[in-house]
């Protein structure tokens, strides 16, 4: 039975490196296509997405197909959950159909952990509430490595709605394991002081100019209005104080790269000038999603 991937926090550095190294083999390497390998032929990947997602679900589907696996996608609206069936019963039903792995996104933090206690089918967390998004952190790490060649010693500024970001948590866990220093920056309403205790090497900064100074990586996050019950600050003020503009990029390290996990709101958290610049790795991140998820699926199905 394969191994679940529930979060980055529980993975050790060697295992992360193994995934990242394997992903290189699946990259297009300048060509038009990802490598098609059929190492997982006959296996069934169930994509259970209980929360809306286009890029992550597509990325997992493509990854599974490239590995030769069959896929089945279910969404909340189309599942029995919408008819009132409990999550456990829905997943038990699916598990009885003997999938090789369940890739799961859910709006509740810990939902995959909850299911992993009840199901024997391995589960890959494709984002759980405001907790973790492990494959995003892995593809972000792959993207940084591709461009900068290392993680150790980098200064990474993660800016925006930290409190509600599973991407931020997974990246903090991963980058910390590799000896990067992480600066978390956002309005105080979206950056709890306890975030400093997430992992070694994490510092908090409420001033964006100080956060980006000498940064090797600037990672922008979306304000997750759907999870926020009161506005953290007025929209215009948010962009003024926490929106990434060219003036910030100029304060950073000369080779700085700019990242965003998407979906991106231009003019709210990032200016178009920066989003479309040579510094922007946003599309590289999306591209790296497929090889990294191929490596993750392989890890679960074959390793």
């Amino acid at each position: 039975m394969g191994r679940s991937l529930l979060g980055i926090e529980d993975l050790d550095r060697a295992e992360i490196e193994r995934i990242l190294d394997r992903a290189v083999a699946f990259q297009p390497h300048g060509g038009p296509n990802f490598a098609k390998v059929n190492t997982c032929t006959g296996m069934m990947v169930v994509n259970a997405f209980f929360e809306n997602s286009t890029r992550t679900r597509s990325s997992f589907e493509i990854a599974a197909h490239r590995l030769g696996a069959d896929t089945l996608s279910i969404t909340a609206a189309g599942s029995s959950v919408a008819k009132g069936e409990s999550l456990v019963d829905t997943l038990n039903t699916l598990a009885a159909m003997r999938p090789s792995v369940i890739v799961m996104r859910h709006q509740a933090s810990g939902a995959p952990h909850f299911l992993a206690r009840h199901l024997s089918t391995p589960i890959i967390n494709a984002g759980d509430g405001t907790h973790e998004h492990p494959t995003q952190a892995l593809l972000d790490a792959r993207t940084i490595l591709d461009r900068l060649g290392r993680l150790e010693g980098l200064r990474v500024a993660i800016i925006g709605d930290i409190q509600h970001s599973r991407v931020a948590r997974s990246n903090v866990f991963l980058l910390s394991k590799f000896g990067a220093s992480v600066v978390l920056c956002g309005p105080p309403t979206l950056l709890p002081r306890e975030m400093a205790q997430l992992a070694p090497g994490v510092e908090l900064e409420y001033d964006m100019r100080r956060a980006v100074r000498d940064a090797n990586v600037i990672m922008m996050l979306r304000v997750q209005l759907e999870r926020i019950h009161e506005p953290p600050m007025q929209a215009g003020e948010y962009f003024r104080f926490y929106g990434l503009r060219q003036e910030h990029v100029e304060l950073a390290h000369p080779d700085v790269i700019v990242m965003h996990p998407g979906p991106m709101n231009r003019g709210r958290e990032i200016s178009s000038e920066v989003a479309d610049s040579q510094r922007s790795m946003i599309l590289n991140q999306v591209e790296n999603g497929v090889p990294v998820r191929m490596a993750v699926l392989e890890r679960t199905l074959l390793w």
Partner: protein
Amino acid sequence: MVKKLLIRNGRVICPASGIDSVADVLIEDGRVAAVGEQLSAPGAETLDAAGLVVAPGFIDIHVHLREPGFTHAETIATGSRAAAAGGFTTVCCMPNTNPVNDSATVTAYIVEKARREAVVHVFPIGAITRGSEGEELAAIGSMVAAGAVAISDDGRPVMNARVMRRAMETARVLDIPVIQHCEDLHLSAGGDMHECADSVRLGLRGIPAAAEDVMVARDLLLAELTGARYHVAHISTKNAVAMVAWARRQGLPVTCEATPHHIALDTGQMRPYDSNFKMKPPLRGPEHVEAVIQGIVSGAVDCLATDHAPHAGDDKMQEFERCPFGIIGLETALGVALEVLVHSGRISLNRLVALFTSEPARVIGWKGDQARGALKPGYSGDVTIFHPEYPWTYDVKNSFSKSSNTPFNGRTFRGGPIVTIVSGEIVWKAPGF
């Protein structure tokens, strides 16, 4: 013919009477008749309690029996049997049923249903406000006349200070305590666990300790204003404990209770996303847990109460963010309390017995025919016999409760209930005794 029960040779601990010695206890016709050495009672049924502690029947002033309305999770019958198995002879049930116990009709229903089906004494707690909605006072006088012994909107706080003031004024005249679920709903909104580094790490929304503290602070001022007997339910923060102690030093009739789970568990012991660790108030950090224990040691905390909150499997078998708050606790209360408080050397066995007997009785203020919480002649003939040392493992599959939501399943305890006697009748015995 008068029915007699003679409990012989036990270590009788009755804090209210100052007794702690090997003695006999005689119960006649449902009431305590005598406590002394070598009592003679011809024709009495006898029970040998040598090597065991014989205490007044335990009282839990904070349970949820879920009837009427939620009988899939618990009933008065099943809840009372779980109480008996935990050594409790008297329980007070909170009004958050369906319908809410906010009228004499519902109070009378519970009283009558308990009379017919419960194996322990059950006293209803009436709602403070209609529907526990916090807006308009419930029929408090009528509920008290029908048998309610206190008022509370437990499960929810009374957010409106003016309404709380009027409730306290009414309660003062009726000489009943007002029991508050201390939680500022604006501060706690959406929260699932204690706000701390763990909540941030797990991506769960936090409930700050201040949500409890600000409500306690407000209510203490209202208690001073009105002179009411005010009781903080399930206290869980260091500031709340300090404020209650302060109020008492000012001479206010203020009391509070702690639950076994809030002194036995902290956020670090939670199994992440396991709904059996989701309760309100949430499990706090170690500094709060220590403050509550210290409050018990110092006397700032008056009594223990379980907040037994059954939820059926389906309700709790959900994602952590979606499942309801609360755990069952009647059957594990003594084992947990012995472990955390007595075996650790924090308090004496005598004090522990007081926390389960005379102290909760004092909080409610039972008098006359209802007097309980002590082995005094004329008091209700309720006795809890327990072993302070024997090892046993809690298996929730054997629970009398209809629900199994507990973080203590599989835990081994040192010491627990052996025999539970209600009005002179043995209602429960530990297997093997």
